[in-house]
């Protein structure tokens, strides 16, 4: 293995400014491991030449996207972290039903390949079909490549084995040769679009639920605060913010399972 090349510094600065993701100096092995394949794919003579073209000023958008996708962690599963979904199922969704609401608006921020918003859409359909049909789920991520997969809604056997009960698989998926695809009736309830959590422009307005899980861990404290403020300003009065199991928020009153009611 080689020492940290200057190219690694360029990639770190690029990822930091483009999406807030902090990469450590000693993670330079990721340069070859993650960007080596891209350098070959885009026919650059070396990783360094690729980095110069992709992360420098006036770089091509498609190269920048490829770097963002390769350098971010997309690991996710259906119904990730049971307690989070249990609180949603047993407390939050029933409270919407009894409040007389007709529908809700949800933002799944940093949705990766879509398992999180699809889990929510399935749960809503099971617990509150009338509300689910009228509700809106907005799902965003900074990685266009993850979003493409999310939009497609096709998952492998290994992916559906994680977190999805057979009851839900049978009810909400159709089978293709090598994969399972979320049925159109559920897919069409989610609007997928690109969004950078660090963007200076506000996120979706008036959301009853905003979830942003397992991404702020990659950010520094300043960016984390900034993102939390942006998320909070998307929550309507009486709404809730949901974070990952290991992430704490100072943004409100804890409701359990990673859910907070903003003060």
């Amino acid at each position: 293995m080689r020492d940290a090349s200057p190219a690694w510094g360029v990639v770190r600065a690029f990822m930091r400014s483009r999406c807030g993701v902090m990469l450590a100096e000693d993670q330079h092995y990721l340069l070859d491991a993650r960007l080596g394949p891209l350098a070959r794919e885009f026919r650059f003579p070396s990783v360094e030449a690729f980095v110069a073209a992709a992360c420098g000023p006036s770089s091509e958008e498609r190269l920048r996207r490829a770097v963002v996708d390769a350098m971010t962690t997309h690991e996710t599963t259906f119904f990730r972290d049971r307690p989070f979904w249990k609180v949603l199922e047993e407390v939050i969704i029933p409270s919407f039903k009894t409040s007389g609401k007709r529908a809700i608006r949800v933002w799944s921020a940093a949705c990766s390949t879509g398992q999180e918003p699809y889990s929510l859409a399935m749960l809503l359909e099971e617990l509150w079909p009338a509300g689910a049909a009228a509700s809106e789920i907005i799902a965003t991520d900074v990685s266009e490549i993850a979003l493409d997969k999310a939009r497609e809604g096709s998952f492998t056997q290994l992916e559906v084995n994680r977190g999805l009960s057979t009851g839900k698989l049978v009810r909400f998926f159709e089978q293709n040769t090598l994969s399972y695809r979320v049925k159109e009736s559920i897919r069409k309830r989610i609007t997928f679009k690109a969004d950078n959590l660090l963007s200076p422009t506000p996120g979706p307005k008036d959301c009853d639920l905003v979830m942003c899980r397992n991404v702020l861990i990659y950010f520094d404290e300043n960016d984390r605060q900034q993102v939390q403020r942006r998320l909070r300003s998307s929550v309507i009065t009486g709404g809730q913010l949901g974070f990952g199991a290991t992430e704490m928020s100072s943004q409100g009153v804890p409701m359990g399972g990673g859910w907070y009611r903003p003060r």
Partner: protein
Amino acid sequence: MIALVVDDSMALRLVHKRMLEAAGWEVRTAKDGEDAITQLDAMPVCHLVMTDWHMPVMDGIELVKRIRQHPRYASVPVLMVTSEAGLSAIQEAIAAGATEVLMKPYTAEALVERVEEVTHA
């Protein structure tokens, strides 16, 4: 908590036994459906049956049907693990009485998650 692992492959019995033991289970094993019924008859308690689908003598489908009529174990959770693929296979196993179905390939993590789900239900 005690589980009965049913598989005609000795290697898989061992693999599944290890996976469950690592998650805190005490594990008995049986080599086919008939052996499983014999063992269940003799077991004072059993909290989970994890069975393969295709086995000689008595397969997993027949085993679940028998379990659902067993005087003591009619309501024990049964997890069917199988190399069968597809939604119709799942429906067949559920119709026979399986609580959940897990299709190969799966990771140890997925297996343990599913076991926890069926036993906490």
